[in-house]
């Protein structure tokens, strides 16, 4: 079926299957930052914003985003670079495969929570798994980023 959604502030028409998930449709249309990491909603790699809310694109049926606003990291490069520079200063990006989803969640958190505590940060990001870093470096980067 044909749907129209606003992706990164641009109206895009997409031809999607009834049972296609948003992550696959987005990758097909060239938004390759969006990664699939699991099939059970556990890893957070596929996080994009739907109407500004961080959402699993692996669990969102593509047809349901008709008329909605979708944001991927391709559409937030300036903000992403700003946070990524803190991440890279810590060396906490490692393999980077989980980074797009992680960064999208961090940027959403920054908009949603004012001056979050360490506990609030950890709670907000608990759905973003990472197998390389052990998370501590990510937390150091976030704290420095939020201080700015």
């Amino acid at each position, binding site marked *: 079926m044909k749907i129209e959604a606003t992706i990164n502030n641009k109206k895009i028409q997409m031809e999607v299957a009834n049972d296609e998930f948003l992550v696959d449709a987005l990758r097909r249309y060239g938004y390759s930052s969006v990664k699939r990491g699991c099939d059970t909603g*556990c890893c957070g790699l596929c996080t994009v914003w739907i109407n500004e809310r961080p959402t699993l694109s692996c669990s969102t049926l593509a047809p349901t985003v008709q008329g909605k606003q979708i944001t991927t990291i391709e559409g937030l490069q300036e903000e992403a670079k700003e946070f990524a520079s803190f*991440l890279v200063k810590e060396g906490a990006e490692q*393999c980077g495969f989980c980074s797009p989803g992680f960064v999208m969640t961090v940027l959403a958190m920054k908009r949603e929570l004012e001056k979050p505590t360490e506990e609030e940060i950890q709670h907000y990001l608990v759905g973003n798994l990472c197998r*390389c*870093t*052990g998370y501590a470096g990510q937390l150091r980067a976030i704290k420095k980023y939020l201080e700015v």
Partner: protein
Amino acid sequence: MKFVNQPIEKIDGMDVATGKPVYTDDLVMTNALIVKILRSPHAFAEIKSIDVSRAEDLPGVECVLTYKDVPNVRFTMAGQSYPEPSPYDRLILDKILRYVGDEVAIVAAVDEKTANKALKLIKVEYEVMEPVLDFEEAIGHSTVIHPEDNLHINFDIGFNQHKNIASSTIIEAGNIEEAFDECTHIVEETYYIQAQSHAMMETYRAFSYLDLNERLSVVSSTQIPFHVRRILARALQIPASKIRVIKPRIGGGFGGKQTASVEVFPAIVTLKTGKPAKIIYDRKESFSCTTSRHAMRIKVKLGADRDGRIRGIDMEGLADTGAYGEHAPTVFSVTGYKTLPLYNQAKAVRYRAHAVYTNKMTAGAFRGYGVTQGTFALECAINQLAGKLNMDPAKLREINMIREGESSPVLGKKDDGTPIKMESCALDRCVKKGKALIEWDRKFPSYEVSDTKVRGLGMAITMQGSGIAKIDTASTIIKLNDDGFFTLLLGSTDMGTGSDTILAQMAAEVLEIPMDKIIVHAVDTDISPFDTGSYASSTTYVTGNAVIKAAENIKEQIIEYGARFLNQSMEAVEFDGGYVKEIDGSNRISLDEIAQRVVSGEGKSQLIGHGSFGGDTSPAPFIAGFAEVEIDKETGKIDLIDYVAVIDCGTVINPNLATIQAEGGLVQGIGMAMFEDVVYSSKGKLQTNTLMQYKIPCRKDIGKLTVEFESSFEPSGPFGAKSIGEVVVNTPPAAIAHAVYNAVGVNARNLPITPEKVLMGMLENKKS
């Protein structure tokens, strides 16, 4: 030093952190066929008949392959240097299926839906046979998992096909029985270590295509491009010269991608159809149809005299290699080789082990590579021995552990017959600093926090290697481009660790040039110099040494040409990174000008430096790990409060990247200790096959991590460096088990240590 031992940012950091298309599936051509695998539903079965006609007739299906369509030549998918110790015991597709998930047929179609539909249209009739699911019953079982007569081994690995023994080993020094006779205190226990899953975020994947010369090109998320080329050549029975392997950025490996689990499937489709083809394993396939850590049973007998001097260590290992041998002979040998030297005061040590076939998923390489398992068993036993001796376990280690300049018979001898020594070892300082950081003397062994909560402390020490002595080799090339910048060509595989960056740091240090003057290229087997690959903690040490040689080599050439252009002798000039200049004069020539003139009609050349290295020894990094846990006495819940790791990896090339590697490795070890349970059904199907059922730690599962370095200087290492990649995963299981014991008196000898085991253990203790 300007670049070495500096927290340089990773050269690909911003790109991977902002979502650039740099991974395998981001690069695949849109017209690639989708490859899917039909898998065995049975743990052990033989294909009686297979009918693929309906699948082949489905529009959009390009090819369906069965065992009838593949070369009848057995090979190994293990990424090891030729001749591999691994048995050549698998075919691309076999008539006999050896575990739930084993490959029955390969389907390639224009899209995923069609491929999945085609899988359902393949009719297979199986003769189901009795599987071997318990590895403790494998030896001599009535079922022989590999009955085939064309299985091949390259040399003696203690293989016994008809007894399901993939490999056997004995390490022995001194008379173990006599040593135990001198002991007043003996510990004898059995430990079980689970088949941990790598669970790297990027699942296994590769794509292939024919290039304009009809050569097979394979783009793969792999740690071992050169081994993949050789493995494919044998499996597909085509010359290696017809194969090119390209490694883009990798989304994590941890040893999993040291086995060529997927490349052969798209490759054979491309050869058969002439078309591009890709395979992406989903998370279930990644969990249940690739490799894992070797599950092991390790029996330890350990004895000391009344002063706490360890006299004898006897370990007996049984490793479950699953359906295929892959890394079996090497992993379980390393279990002994890299644990026994820790306690070199022992009069006798022995390690005997078998690796056995079972009808479960194959075990492979996983960060720690057998040492992780051995460390858990041995360190748990050491902690228990300390308890028996009524001695502080840190003290017991201080008395017995190896120190700088000492040797152990297990380390072997040099070519000249003298014993190999620990040339660099700060383990004693690591223990001392770790004790201070966790406030050991104040808190050990335990203290009450409330009526229901108690905290306990525990510790473990470990070592690893740096590359495989006399086997791993790396070559590197550095060329000066016409515009005065360098290309560093590597065959090692940065899997997110930052090895491309630290190798560039080393080149920059030697050449005294800024980092942005170096671009790094890795890996394309058509272009890159040979490297065994990034595994066995080799890249910093082995490839690093090769980089230094290549950089020194090109530096000499720069000086030579600079001197020539200045009409001076080489002795009369020096290179400072920017200019070759006269030592006693004021004339100088810039690097840029040298570069341009060398490639011009004047120079008719290009400066290319190269360097190769292979270690004669494998210098050991060390860690002292300390855990503080809090246990809920009513539920058994374990909260990790603090984990302290003090690391001797020699010179730290990049403190930031080394810290993150360490933290990541610790958390992987913590996962193994506390969360990552592996469960099979009674029929041999892996149940923990999603990230929902197999829990890797999330960020709230980890307490405070404290990582510090206590550096030694390794004389044979690049700038004094040793490895860090693997050793970091080893200590948490034993240290956490020890902390749990000290908190609530439950001795966990079977990983993971779940709240259920803790609470049921406490209830058991109450009864007795």
